[in-house]
């Protein structure tokens, strides 16, 4: 009888030990999974998203929002469109509608310091003024894209967002730059 009781105790202990191990692994896995998804969706703790490059941000926005005749403005052409002190840029990425038919434009500047964002913001606001002058009479139907909320600053980042869903693009931008 004592032997049976001892066996039951041992079995119970083994089960408990195994259960604890499994729960531990499961917990660890869940944690890893959460961390992974956080990194992808850029979420809330900001630890990963704070390191998001400008290219990662434009990639994410362009994956979510339609952008006609997309043409990348690579660094060798950046000065033609944006006047920025290159030494103050941490990362940069920009796209424009290549056909000239639509005002769509997306540019993200990650500056080395938040002190450098003001000059970029001012420069981009002038760019918006220029595009407004160009498109307001030419394609009035497209002017909803130039809605006055096209330059967004978040931390060290400044974005020019002119697209079919500025609100969604801005939301993505802010979520990645918290």
């Amino acid at each position: 009888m004592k032997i049976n009781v001892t066996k039951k105790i041992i079995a119970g202990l083994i089960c408990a030990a195994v259960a604890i191990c499994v729960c531990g692994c499961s917990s660890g896995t869940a944690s890893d999974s959460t961390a992974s998804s956080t990194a992808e969706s850029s979420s809330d703790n900001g630890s990963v998203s704070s390191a998001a490059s400008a290219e990662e941000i434009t990639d994410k926005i362009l994956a979510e929002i339609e952008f006609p005749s997309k043409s990348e403005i690579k660094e060798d052409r950046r000065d033609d469109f944006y006047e920025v002190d290159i030494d103050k840029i941490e990362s940069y990425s920009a796209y424009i509608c290549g056909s000239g038919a639509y005002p769509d434009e997306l540019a993200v500047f990650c500056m080395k310091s938040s002190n450098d964002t003001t000059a970029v913001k001012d420069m981009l606001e002038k760019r918006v003024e220029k595009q407004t002058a160009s498109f307001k009479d030419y394609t009035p139907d497209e002017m909803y894209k130039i809605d006055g909320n096209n330059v967004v600053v978040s931390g060290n980042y400044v974005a020019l967002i002119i697209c079919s869903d500025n609100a969604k693009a801005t939301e993505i931008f802010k979520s990645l730059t918290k």
Partner: protein
Amino acid sequence: MLAIICSLSVILCGCSDAVSSSVSDSAPDTSSVTSTAPQTTHATTLPQTTTTVTTVPVTEEPVQTELTTEQTEQPETQSSEYTDSAETEPQSEPPASQPETPSAPTDFEESFFDDALFIGDSITTGLYLYGYIDMSKVYAKMGLAPSTALYSDVDGVTLESKIKTDKPKKIYIMLGTNSVGYSDNDYLASCMEELVNSISSISKAKIYVLSIPPVTAYAEASYDNYLSKSAIDEYNRLLKTAISKTNAVFLDFHSVLTASDGYYYEEYHEMDGIHFMGSTYQVMLSFLEKHS
């Protein structure tokens, strides 16, 4: 007891697998972020062809619009498929007309245009927006027209100033899309003649004037701007006559972009049925290189 422990182990192993599975299921999400990286529309993504053009007009003797009929003789890539289908499915209704496939070449040397200046409207801005031509070699903006090019400015720079400063050796002009339908075509053609003569008075550059591109049937019907196929054809005809009175060369680029029905080839136009696709600029530059 042992059976109980074994059962527990089996169940727990199953759970463990399930967890692993759920983790691996999430992996594709990570790669999807990478795979959704945007693809730029550049030469590498555009159709390339080395086919020799036999239907494009010759520079010195611009071919009449009858050239369009030659394009109708180009083989239609899907015609054989249509024949096969018709034979195997005789009960099916006759399909809609098969789209023609253009065969104009797209190869060009960018350096050929180092001493060039392109004058035009929003269509011409695409040359630098897509990155095919340096922005400094493009004098273009939205809404520019034959009647305004001489007196307008682009970013504060007049055309006269631009030409005197840059001293281009080749000047390409493509203007009229913003005006055809609104203004009298005779007047527009005379404005182009005046524009060419004015440029000739300040520059020794060789001047090439391009016929304006076609539109799609959809654009013709939906746009409230009278930019119709017939108006475009008339303007281009009058433009050719007007330019023949100058020392400029008329280039019938319109025919390169136009299918046998008189409208844009599907491959060449932007969604609005008026502007160019990225690949169309390659066709344009290849055409200009070969005819200037």
